[in-house]
């Protein structure tokens, strides 16, 4: 059989299903109690520190953080089912998303013992909220072109530059910033970059909102004006920033949030067809099938990551297919709906939000164009 792009599938066993049901029951209670209103793309758009802390209390944060650092010491697979259940119900999970997905794992891999002790317990309780500072105004897909400078000073570094698209920076406590700590060598563009843990309350940090096309404020521009970063807040090795930020991409790209951002809309459309408010159409079945298959594919990648297998290409496949699909769901439902067919309807609200969020799906975390290149490389074409 040919070399596969994606690891072989795996069946979920009862121990995992039990956890799934436990989370599902909790979330159903929460919806019932009105603790949150299900929405789309909530891992970016719905920020609720109380809800996040409640997840922490239940032991559903810091899933892969060892218990020594206040985490749960459990598996990527268990984190996977919790993540899926939170996303499908459209729960307000933005506050802990970045920390749970990538800050925790990065700290575990590259952080000092002191850094781990300082941040991981708070992350696992849902009390320390992190953002991520990678993109810059001119960098776009070309991350190695970041211009934020880190200058060596007594006892640390001074960071100067501008990060953009920093989701939740106005609410977060800290972020990881990628900066150039040595001058650019055009022949080795990926060298001379480093990661820094930046306190977003520190002097020299200015946070300005970037308002999205629908009028919402999720993103920010973070100006760093000579912000002092003490040596103990360098993450990992100076000069190894590129290797550090790219090593965790498979975790970032293969998760259920690349498939399920519009699941609430799909579910509402299924209901509307059952109620006769939308015409019955085979397109619904096609989309449900793709979401189901992507659920299996995303899980298969998780089992590979749990087994410490390389899954960079597979993660790119999940992200290209999944983000295209979650966006296509928005467009599909839009083609079925006629203006004036209903009002004050849940479907309308979800549809408009999905349309407004959709452009970001295939851009954030690596554009589909970049990722197709990653897949082509995985196929040996580059």
């Amino acid at each position, binding site marked *: *059989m040919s070399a596969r792009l994606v690891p072989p599938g795996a069946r979920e066993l009862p121990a995992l299903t039990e956890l799934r049901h436990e989370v599902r029951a909790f979330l159903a209670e929460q919806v019932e109690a009105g603790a949150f209103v299900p929405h789309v793309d909530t891992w970016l758009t719905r920020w609720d520190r109380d809800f996040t802390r409640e997840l922490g209390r239940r032991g559903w944060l810091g899933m892969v953080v060892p218990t020594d650092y206040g985490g749960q010491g459990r598996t990527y697979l268990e984190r996977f089912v919790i993540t899926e259940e939170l996303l499908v119900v459209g729960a307000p999970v933005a506050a802990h998303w970045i920390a749970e997905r990538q800050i925790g794992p990065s700290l575990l891999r590259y952080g000092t013992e002191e850094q781990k002790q300082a941040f991981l317990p708070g992350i696992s309780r849902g009390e320390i909220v992190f953002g991520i500072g990678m993109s810059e105004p001119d960098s776009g897909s070309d991350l190695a072109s970041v211009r934020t400078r880190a200058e060596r000073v007594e006892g640390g570094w001074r960071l100067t530059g501008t990060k953009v698209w920093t989701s939740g920076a106005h609410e977060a406590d800290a972020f990881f910033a990628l900066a150039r700590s040595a001058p650019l060598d055009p022949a080795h563009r990926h060298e001379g970059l480093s990661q820094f843990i930046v306190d977003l309350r520190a002097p020299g940090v200015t946070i300005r909102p970037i308002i999205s096309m629908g009028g919402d404020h999720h993103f920010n521009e973070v100006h760093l004006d000579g912000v002092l970063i003490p040596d103990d807040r360098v993450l990992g090795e100076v000069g190894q920033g590129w290797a550090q930020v790219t090593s965790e991409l498979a975790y970032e790209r293969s998760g259920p949030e690349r498939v399920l951002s519009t699941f609430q809309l799909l*579910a509402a459309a299924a209901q509307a067809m059952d109620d006769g408010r939308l015409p019955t159409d*085979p397109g619904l*079945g096609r989309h449900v099938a*793709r979401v*189901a298959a992507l659920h299996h594919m995303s899980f298969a990648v998780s089992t590979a990551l749990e087994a410490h297998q390389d899954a960079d290409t597979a993660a790119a*496949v999940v992200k*290209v297919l999944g983000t295209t699909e979650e966006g296509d769901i928005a467009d599909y439902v839009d083609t079925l709906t006629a203006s004036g067919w209903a009002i004050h309807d849940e479907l309308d609200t979800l549809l408009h939000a999905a349309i407004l969020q959709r452009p970001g799906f295939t851009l954030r975390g690596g554009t589909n164009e970049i990722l197709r290149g990653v897949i082509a490389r995985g196929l040996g074409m*580059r």
Partner: protein
Amino acid sequence: MTDRSQTSQPSEPTEPSELAAATTPDPDLVAVLDDLFIDYRATRATPTAVVDLDRDLWQRLEELGLTRLTGSEAAGGSGGGWVDAAALLGLAAAAAAPVPLAEHDVLGGWLLESAGLPNDGGIRTVCRPDPSGVALNVTWARDASRIVALWEDRDQWRVADVPTSRVAVEERRNLAGEPCDTVEFDLDDLEAGTVVPHEIGEQFHLRGALARCAQVTGAMERIVEVVLAHVRERQQFGRPIGRFQAVQHLVADLASETALARTATDAAVARAAASDWHDPGMLFAVGVAKSCVGHAASVVVRGSHQALGAIGTTLEHELHTLTKPILARRSEYGSLQDWDETLTALAASAGHDRLWTLITTGRAKPAKETHA
């Protein structure tokens, strides 16, 4: 917020092996199949427009016990499960091997065993004749020694193992040039069939559909290899065409669709294997596979022919020995549209609150309603 803190914290961490089970075919079997089909591909004749059963290959498969891979050992089979059978079907399809493995073993052999009928060798195909005893598009009928008929007769399902000499065969060929005949039975032969449980009648369509998914997916995986070899080698404007970004994206897309089809097929096969087809979610699982495989076929057939250019449209090229059967098989055991409609009905019936349950378990309704 409710206040049930810490309740779900387990005292002992769960091992990954207790959480998920891989479902991969027997590696020894795969090694045998790889060798067999690599050899087959290397020695077979140039492709033809008309494809006939390869009796030499069938004999080699028989000698290896592969023509009755899924038969129980008691009945002279190899006792293989659906995971192994899907691997065999996929690899045979990847080699465009003109042999009725799905019909003879996976479907026909199963029907005979389910009916408690003897399986005395020979080559079989399988079909579902209509009330008047006519079956359309019966693959390999003219080449079979007997035809296993599944027949719905006054609300009862019967299985009859009818010698081909007793049926009228009108020879036709499908898009792939394979025998795909019209068969007319003597109603007496069908009425003499053994009554089987209703469940068998319902499962037949699902098993047939999933067997086709395994074949189509295997053929698509081979296409990815063929395309990759071509775009590395073929030069245009002074470099391999695989260096062009447009070609890279075309190939990335068809390979990704193939991967999704593989995932969906394997998930359905794993569910079938784990429950011996008794899982009430099989209809949904097979539907997901048939839908993903069918839509992938559109992308893969189109993209592979586009990547290969004119050379890929010639009779002597391997490509059409894969693309034509893919399209022939995706329309068998229900059209793509039929299956999307089935999934739509399941999804609408699940509604807002149970759509996710449908996706994770295959059940649109709570368990008690499903049994009702």
